[in-house]
């Protein structure tokens, strides 16, 4: 299995003129990119603007992307440069961010910062999405929950998860898929319900 084959196949489609494939790349990496940019700027809305700018720069530079590095590595580099330039041009100091800090640390008041720019509806929806996904994960059978958490939280490959769970790779793939399906069923209800209609999926 070649790493990054999925991104590369989407990238090649974009390079051949298929803009729809770029949507898939944005959907996949938008949260990671915003999170990354938030190491440099304080305001989440500003971080989204910078991430948007980074995606657009990446799109325009895609003809020069040869696939020597992974797409996300290349994209992250663009995002970091865009964020640094934004900080310099707006004469702001980057947020001091301890990379080793536990993201679950409740004292880290990112939510507090969000409130400055977020609409109440947006905050409610974000909270609702989060609580729905967490509830769905809690309701998963143990083997499905372990598989999806090892994948998403620890970033393990299917082979590594198979070794950790002492099962075939095919079983890991099936467990992760079934976990996602179970969570997605609940999540879809949020988006297709009242609040979800008001906002784009993003």
């Amino acid at each position, binding site marked *: 299995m070649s790493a990054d084959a999925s991104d590369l*196949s989407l990238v090649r489609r974009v390079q051949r*003129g298929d*803009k*729809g494939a770029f949507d*898939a790349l944005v959907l996949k990496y*938008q949260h990671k990119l915003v999170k990354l940019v938030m190491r440099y700027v304080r305001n989440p809305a500003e971080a989204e603007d910078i991430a948007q700018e980074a995606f657009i720069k990446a*799109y325009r530079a895609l003809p020069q992307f040869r696939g020597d590095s992974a797409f996300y590595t290349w994209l992250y580099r663009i995002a970091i440069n865009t964020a640094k330039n934004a900080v310099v041009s707006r004469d702001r100091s980057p947020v001091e961010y301890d990379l080793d800090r536990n993201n679950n640390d409740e004292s880290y008041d990112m939510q507090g910062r969000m409130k400055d720019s977020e609409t109440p509806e947006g905050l409610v929806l974000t909270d609702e999405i989060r609580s729905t996904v967490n509830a769905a994960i809690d309701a998963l059978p143990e083997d499905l929950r372990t598989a999806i958490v090892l994948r998403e939280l620890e970033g393990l490959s*299917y082979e590594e998860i198979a070794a950790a769970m002492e099962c075939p790779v095919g079983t890991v793939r099936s467990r992760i898929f079934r976990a996602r399906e179970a969570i*997605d069923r609940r999540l879809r209800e949020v988006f297709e319900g009242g609040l979800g209609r008001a906002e*784009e999926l993003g």
Partner: protein
Amino acid sequence: MNEELDSQLSAMFDDELPPAECELLARRLSRDEPLKARWGRYAIVGAVIRAERGVRLNAPLAGRVNAVLRAEPALAGHTAPRDLRHDRLRWWQPLAGAALAASVAAVSILWLRAQAPGEAPLTAHLAPPAALSAAPAAATARGDSYVVPVPKQPAGVTVPSTELANYVVAHSMFSPPVARRNLLSAFMTSEPATSGTEEPQADVKGIAQ
């Protein structure tokens, strides 16, 4: 939704799908909006599990990027820089084509008129290929000159009007239909009865080229 397809989508999201399957699914993903929405929700699930707390999970970022890029040309038609010189040349090309066609028609008509009504068959005093190839060498030997040397003519090579008509038809793309029809009818009306004396067609082809 097809379960196998969704299973592939999940594996593709994790970069765990074989490249050949990725190609096919990427094609579908780029066009299938419900599939794309599901792909987007997979990303949200990942963001929640990783507790990316400062990130708005419902942010319309993809929609905003899409809106900006919608106004831009697709990359495939954008990779090579445009040749502005080509743009400048393009406007006169139809005019040049028409002028060329008109000149060919005018020369042909003048040439036909030069033939006396009773003078048949249509003839052209054409040099044989050997004489043609010798001409540039002779010109070089005499130094630079803008005068095309007239080679010594052997006996007149007869080019029957049928051959000329074929030539005109073969090059019909360079002349407007009306002029072509006039020219052809002129050839046909002047067609002599001595068609049996035609020279081999290869000679005419050689000239035409």
